[in-house]
């Protein structure tokens, strides 16, 4: 067992941590509240790691473990792409690639009343926001933003949906923009919706554009910025 002696946990920030590592000693910290994100939990007087990944810190007091998986852990205020599995009287049952199905109340739409409940088929793709996500309870979704407006949430028609890892969908939504999206956007016109649960939807006027964009995104996960630009140029050359 290796023991790190610095009083601050800065030795572990941005490093790989594996389950079982104790990364923070609460007795050495002065009276502050710290916020723990995914992958960490409190073990008595210390914070221990429960998922392998890179430990991240954001001032003033947020710690979390960043990792990329194929399954999703529901978090409040995440925007995800869900697929309708069933329609009940009060809720739609939506699959969001999490441990359990999520509920979308039938009234959680802009101007939603009992008289104008939307009709979704089983298998419809929806862009939704996670409202509640607690341990042991099915997550709750909504098709409106916090103020009740529709704000682009709702069903996604046409287009093509494919699955990626959660790490790639976070990279697609990062700012500054992902190099692949920038390079594609300069030459092609397409519409894209990225869910933090590892689903991406692409729509464009012609199927060949959709296929090109989807393949470019799927191939870009392990490439650096420069390699991504080169890959996109090669793909575009082949089409034009």
């Amino acid at each position: 067992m290796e023991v790190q002696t610095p009083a601050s946990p800065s030795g572990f920030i941005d490093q790989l941590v594996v389950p079982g590592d104790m990364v923070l000693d609460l007795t050495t910290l002065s009276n502050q509240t710290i916020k723990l994100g995914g992958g960490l939990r409190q073990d008595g007087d210390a914070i221990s790691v429960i998922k392998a990944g890179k430990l991240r810190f954001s001032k003033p007091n947020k710690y979390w473990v960043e990792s990329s998986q194929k399954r999703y852990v529901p978090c409040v205020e995440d925007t995800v792409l869900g697929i309708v599995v069933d329609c009940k009287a009060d809720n739609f049952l939506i699959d969001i690639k999490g441990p359990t199905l999520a509920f979308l109340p039938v009234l959680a739409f802009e101007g939603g009343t009992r008289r104008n409940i939307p009709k979704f088929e089983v298998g419809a793709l929806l862009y939704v926001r996670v409202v509640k996500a607690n341990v042991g309870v099915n997550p709750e979704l909504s098709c409106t933003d916090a103020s009740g407006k529709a704000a682009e949430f709702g069903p996604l028609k046409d287009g093509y949906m494919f699955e990626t890892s959660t790490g790639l969908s976070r990279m697609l939504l990062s700012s500054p923009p992902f190099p692949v999206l920038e390079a594609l956007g300069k030459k092609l016109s397409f519409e894209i919706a990225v869910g933090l649960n590892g689903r991406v939807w692409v729509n464009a006027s012609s199927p060949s554009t959709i296929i090109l964009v989807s393949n470019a995104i799927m191939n870009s996960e392990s490439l650096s910025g420069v390699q991504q630009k080169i890959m996109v140029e090669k793909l575009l050359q082949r089409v034009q």
Partner: protein
Amino acid sequence: MEERADGRTQNQLRPLACSHSILNRAHASASWSQGDSKVLAAVYGPKAGTKKNENPEKACLEVIWKPKTGQIGKLEKEYEMILKRTLQSICILSMNPNTTTSVIIQVVNDDGALLPCAINAACAALVDAGIPLKHLAVAICCCLMESGHVILDPTKLEEQKMKAFTYLVFPNSVLSVLSEGALSVNGEPIEHGIITSVTHGLMSVNDYLRCLERGRAASSKLSAFLRRSLQSQLRNDSSRTA
């Protein structure tokens, strides 16, 4: 010092190799090989719902063992039970209640120490899946030869000639900001704890304690190897600078 058939010393392990995320359709997968013994583990889940007799307040773990050839029999069921109990003790079962996680073990090649190889592969696959774990598990096989020597990580030929063997599973070595005293239980460091111990054959208590000692020493090497292989996996995933 007795000479082993492949030239290793008594405490030397075979070359280890581990890869992650090799299967396309599984939610997570890992392959672990020790010398010529190779096992592939795939993890699906967590998925909603538990089986009939399982406690719905905890996550349920299901293990399916697929041998290389032949039908599934009692030996495979025994391996499934040992794996299930071992993995249940390292998972945090209260985090995803009323869900089932399936671990499927496929034996690719059996050249001795098969169950420890499978336990290591299953643990690596659970880490790849992001299932919440208290700590990792590293497994090692120690066997007692006719001459009374204890050797580690036997091949199939050595396994057939030995008097008794034991499979030992220990928690991994952790990096910690706390002092050593805070992390020990009853004066012993955490990685001296035993998660699972399976013995076959006749061995005296002293021989068992010697096996434990050798196993503990080797488990730190296995922990370091697992950490390095996760490190290279992490580097492959995020080779872009943020």
